[in-house]
């Protein structure tokens, strides 16, 4: 069994390319179901602590930079659009467009991660890193006292902020790696209107990561405490 076999036709265990394509899509969706549950554990824990420590979580939201969060939301949804267009280009067999859209998606993804890194650095400077360096001061501390939010509870909020966005960023990095492979394969001309299953499957993954962010953005940056 080698890679070239997969490129030229369907893999030996399948009857035809159609079956292989369906299996690939179903496999990715089944995997995404596990991803839902993986992030689900975090969302469940977040729900409980947020309800228990509402003032602290609302204060935590205030300490995040809404503009950067919103900017990143636009960037990531934009990357979903380019990804969807990449899949479409693969379907219609437009190879140049396919490569272009993959590159665009990667640029937007990298931009997202860049902003994220900037935000993390900012939190480090403000001593808002749970466990390692958590000692809010100045304006941050004022906010915390003003809203009667205990410092340990605000630290819990930042645990979730870092765990959730960190896990999301990790998925983005993996996604960028997958896209890089996809780009190489598309430049080599591996894909055609008959065989584009990997493009579609990667697209599904990328959109899923986008969906996670669609929830993280309001849960972490927005709700409560912006008025």
């Amino acid at each position, binding site marked *: 069994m080698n890679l070239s076999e997969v490129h030229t036709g369907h893999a030996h265990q399948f009857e035809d390319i159609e079956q292989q394509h369906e299996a690939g899509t179903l496999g990715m969706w089944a995997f995404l179901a596990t991803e839902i*549950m993986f992030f689900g554990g975090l969302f469940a824990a977040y729900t409980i602590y947020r309800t228990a*420590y509402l003032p602290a979580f609302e204060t935590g939201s205030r300490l995040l930079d809404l503009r950067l969060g919103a900017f990143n939301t636009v960037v990531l*949804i934009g990357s979903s659009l380019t990804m969807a267009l990449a899949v479409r280009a693969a379907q219609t067999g437009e190879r140049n467009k396919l490569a272009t859209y993959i590159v665009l998606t990667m640029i937007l993804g990298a931009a997202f991660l860049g902003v994220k890194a900037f935000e993390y650095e900012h939190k480090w400077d403000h001593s808002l890193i749970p466990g390692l360096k958590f000692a809010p001061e100045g304006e941050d501390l004022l906010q915390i006292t003003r809203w*009667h939010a205990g410092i340990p509870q605000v630290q819990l909020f930042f645990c979730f902020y870092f765990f959730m966005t960190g896990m999301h960023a990790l998925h983005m990095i993996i996604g960028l790696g997958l896209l890089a492979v996809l780009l190489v394969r598309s430049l080599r001309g591996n894909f055609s209107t008959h065989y584009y299953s990997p493009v579609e499957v990667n*697209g599904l993954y990328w959109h899923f990561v986008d*969906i996670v962010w669609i929830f993280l*953005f309001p849960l972490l940056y927005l709700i409560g405490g912006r008025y």
Partner: protein
Amino acid sequence: MSGHVVPVRTYVLIFLALMVGTALTVGAAFVDLGRLNTVVALAIAVCKMLLVILFFMHVRHSSQLMKIVVASGFLWLVILISITVSDYLTRSWIPDPEGWGPSTAITLPSQQSSTAKTAVVAEAPASAAAQ
């Protein structure tokens, strides 16, 4: 290979709808709706998610099987969250035994406001405070 090719226009429209959703959710966050703020934010997020799943991820044109797989993933998430939360929500239904002092366990409704909590502690009988 048969695969439903969606026109570019649809993708762009969905993208614009998602942008509108993002603007709405940011805007709603600045209006004080009380507890509804969370509901509105999550409702908008669910709508955005549905747009992505149905159109970007092609579930609208996928087989019944694919739809079931997607739905069951979210159904299981609901099971996880709702049953876990049901424990926390009902913990405070049974009052702490007399003389035990306030419970330190996390109970959702009683800690809605931390100020109320401290007030309770302050008014606790001297015997509890002495412990």
